[in-house]
Each structure stands twice: as structure tokens, then as C-alpha cells.
């Protein structure tokens, strides 16, 4: 029993670490631009296909190391260009937040069907990051899970460092906290919007590379990821990075324990019940600002 609990906790921690990577990117975009990116889940799938092309199709040397090395600039560029070409022109309208939501919803559907057209309707699988197991006493851990956990946490720490120690990171926070104040000190708001979109694309793309090893790459799977990321950000508090972090680990643990004790079919019910109760008592979420 005790070993099982440890095992489930480890599984919850691993889920939480990947969810945090995905949810923080979504909440970052909302916090800075006050617009919701519905295409977020599709970029997760894009991350999975990106790794699949490099690893399975091209057999890139260096394995996952090369994939991560290539992913950061590619996802940054994709996110940045997409923001500049599709989203930025909408800002001249008074109700641009609503227009961005409509556009990203369309983009999500476009990407999902494009994935299906290009890669076919069947799911694809990625090779494991690491093979084998580690035994600690009677407990057996998969090296792949440990690798995913360590990489997710490293990515989070890396993004945290960028946000708190670089001029661009500080500017991102400044725009999120006070857009007028940011303009007053001379922060180019539009460039920061694009940079934020790009950073969040990197985060969800890396999340896709890591989690698709466990969950397979489903061309239409973006919607589920989008819902998951939304549940975490709404539970943690829209726009609150710290709230999303806590929420990701709480929900990761909840999923693991409910799945173990009551069965996987009850996982979504438990997650959504927690979300609804939280929002009924505290509409701004765990750490959202009123």
C-alpha cells in the first residue's frame, strides 16, 4: 500500500511538472495580452510532430538533445511570426481580445485538420527519451519518467530565470502588470506581445515533445490539451504564473490519486468538480488578481 502511494505520488509529480510547463505558457499570454489563445493545444501537437519528423523521419543525430536544441528557435520564430502576421493586425479594433479568441479558435481547427491531412489520421509514437528502469528498494521507476520530470522542471526554472533576470522578461512582466506604465517607460508593447506569444509557443511545444512520448501524437488531440491547460489556468487564476504552477501540481496529484483509487474514468469528473467548486467560491481562481 505504502509503495503504491509513493508510486502514485511520483506519477502525480511527473504529470504536474509537464502540466505546469503547458499551463504557465497559456497564463503568460493571457496575463500579458488579456486575450485567450485557443490554438494553444494545437501547438502542443505541433511539438510532437516536430520531434517525430526529426527523430523518426530524419533520424537526426544527437536524438532528443538535437530536437530540443532545434525546437527553441523554431518555436520562437513560429510563435513570433504568427503573432505579427495574424494577431497584431487585430489590435486596431476596440474589441480585439474577442477577435483574437475567434481567430485562434479558427487557427486551432485549421492546424488540427492540417495535421490530419499531412500526417494522416492515425496516431504516431515517439521513441522514449531514456530506456530502462531504476529500482529503489522495491520501487521501480522508469528512467523516461525521471527524464521528463527533470527536463520539465529545468525548462520551468529556465523560463523563470528569463522572466526575472532579462530585460525582455522584466518587460513582459511590466506589460502584464500595467500596460500604460509599460508604455510610459518606453517598452514597445507590440514587440512584447509578440515575444510573449513566442515564449508561450516554446513552452507548449516543449511540453508536446515531452508528453507525446507517453501519450502518442494524435492529430486531433490539441483540443484535449487545450481543455487541460485551460482548467489548470482557470483553477490557478488566469494570468497568475505562480497560481498555474500550484494548480498544475495539485491537479497532477489529484489525477494520479483519483485514477488509482477510483479508476481513470473518474479523473476528469474529479478535476472539473475541483475547478467548479474553486470558481464558485473564488471566481478569480487560487491566485488570480481581482
Amino acid at each position, binding site marked *: 500500500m505504502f509503495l503504491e502511494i509513493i508510486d502514485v505520488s511520483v506519477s502525480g509529480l511527473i504529470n504536474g511538472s509537464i502540466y505546469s510547463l503547458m499551463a504557465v505558457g497559456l497564463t503568460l499570454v493571457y496575463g500579458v495580452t488579456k486575450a485567450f489563445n485557443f490554438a494553444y493545444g494545437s501547438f502542443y501537437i505541433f511539438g510532437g510532430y516536430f520531434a517525430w519528423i526529426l527523430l523518426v523521419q530524419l533520424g537526426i543525430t544527437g536524438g532528443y538533445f538535437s530536437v530540443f536544441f532545434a525546437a527553441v528557435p523554431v518555436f520562437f520564430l513560429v510563435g513570433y511570426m504568427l503573432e505579427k502576421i495574424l494577431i497584431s493586425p487585430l489590435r486596431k479594433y476596440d474589441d480585439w481580445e474577442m477577435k483574437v479568441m475567434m481567430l485562434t479558435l479558427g487557427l486551432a481547427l485549421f492546424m488540427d485538420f492540417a495535421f490530419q491531412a499531412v500526417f494522416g489520421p492515425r496516431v504516431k509514437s515517439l521513441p522514449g527519451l531514456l530506456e530502462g528502469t531504476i529500482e529503489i528498494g522495491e520501487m521501480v521507476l522508469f528512467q523516461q519518467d525521471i527524464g521528463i520530470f527533470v527536463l520539465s522542471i529545468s525548462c520551468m526554472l529556465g523560463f523563470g530565470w528569463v522572466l526575472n533576470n532579462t530585460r525582455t522578461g522584466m518587460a513582459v512582466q*511590466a506589460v502584464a*502588470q500595467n500596460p*500604460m506604465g509599460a508604455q510610459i*517607460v*518606453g517598452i514597445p508593447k507590440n514587440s512584447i506581445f509578440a515575444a510573449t506569444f513566442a515564449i508561450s509557443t516554446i513552452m507548449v511545444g516543449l511540453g508536446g515533445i515531452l508528453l507525446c512520448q507517453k501519450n502518442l501524437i494524435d492529430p486531433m488531440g490539441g483540443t484535449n490539451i487545450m481543455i487541460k491547460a485551460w482548467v489548470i489556468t482557470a483553477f490557478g487564476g488566469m494570468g497568475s504564473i505562480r497560481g498555474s504552477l500550484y494548480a498544475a501540481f495539485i491537479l497532477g496529484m489529484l489525477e494520479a490519486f483519483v485514477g488509482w483509487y477510483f479508476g481513470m474514468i473518474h479523473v476528469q469528473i474529479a478535476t472539473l468538480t475541483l475547478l467548479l467548486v474553486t470558481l464558485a467560491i473564488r471566481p478569480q481562481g487560487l491566485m488570480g488578481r481581482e
Partner: protein
Amino acid sequence: MLKIDKLNAYYGQSHVLKNVTASVERGTVVVMLGPNGHGKSTLLKSICGLVEKVDGRISYDEQDIIGLASDKIVNMGVTYIAENRELFPYMTIRENLKLGAYSKKARANEKKNIEWVASLFPKLMQRHNQLARTMSGGEGKMLAIARGLMSDADLLCIDEPALGLQPSYRIDIFNIVQEISKRGKTVFLVEQNIPQLIEMADKIYIMEEGSISFEGSKDDVLNNEQLKEIFLGL
């Protein structure tokens, strides 16, 4: 240094500034008086690129700046110090000041300016790790001015710095405006009715209903009984 010619500004359907013409010479302190809600703040914001719908002409050092993005204007050496502070609430005093020096121009002189700011606002620097959201109104106003000075601007557009402050803070603010002016900076300051400010003004404008209704020296105001009574309460 700054020339404004037939400037109009709009918020939605509302025509706020109507053919405003004014000028600010380098190294001077220009004060604009006028009732609340008559367009004084909009004028300063228009100069600094913070109002979207504007037409007419604004030139700074002979360069046309109307319609330029605010970050370009800040980089040219013009900064706006907001009446309602516009700080970054979840950042510390030090982080707010650091972001004040965001522009390329400011970055070059960041070290020199932080020393100057520390000498002007010693209390702020003693509590540099305090979050801006936990500061009182007067302290926040001081931080807003300090952050504005970090931008290394040559022209400071200061919006109602003494509004809603206790008398002791008001005196501090007048002293600081004097210090800024002594350092060769140009100040374009907007207030409602502060007689003490008149003493340091090289030129005074009065704005009513979005138009300039008076332009003159401090003596012109002080010798005009009607103006003294209406705008200075003297």
C-alpha cells in the same frame, strides 16, 4: 525645444483638445493651470505618444513626433510622469526604477541616474525591496517621479504631481521639481491650483475646455486679480 501647433486630440467621439498651440523652451519650467477634466493631462499624454487619435503638429528638437510610438518618444528624451502613478504594483521599488531606464538612451546613463535619484529620494532607496503596491499615495508619487528621472529624459512632462498629497509631500515635490530644473532639465508641469508652483514657472498657460485661454509670465498672472482668484485661489 517643444512646439505644439494646432493640436487636436480625441477619446472616441469626444473632442478633448481643440487647436492647442504652445511651446516649451529648453531649460525652462512651464506650468499649465486649469480646471479638472479640461484636457491638461491629455495634452501631456499626446506629447508622449499615449493618445491614439491626434492631429496637428508636435515637434521636439525640430523633429516631428506626432503619431510616433511612445517607446520612440521616450528614447528621444521625453518622458511622462503620470498623475495616477502607473507603477508596476507587484515589482519592488528597485525593479520599478530599473524599468524606468528601459530605453536605449536611459541605459547608457543608468548608473549615474540611479545615484542622482538616490540623492533626491533617500527614503525610497532605503526600502528598495518593498513592493510598489504596498506604498502610500505620497510615496508612490515619489517613486513615479523617480522612475521618470531614470529615463534620462531632457523634457519631463509631469502630470499633477501634488494632487491629493499631504502638505509635507507637496513641499518635497516642489523642492524636487526645483532640483530637476537646476540640473538643466526642462519641465512641462500640469496642476490645478497650486500657488507655490507659480514662483518657479518661466511661463504659464491656462487651459479651459480643451483650448489655451491664457499665455503669459508669472507676473502677468499675479497682476491679474481675476486669474489669481479663479486659478490660484489667492
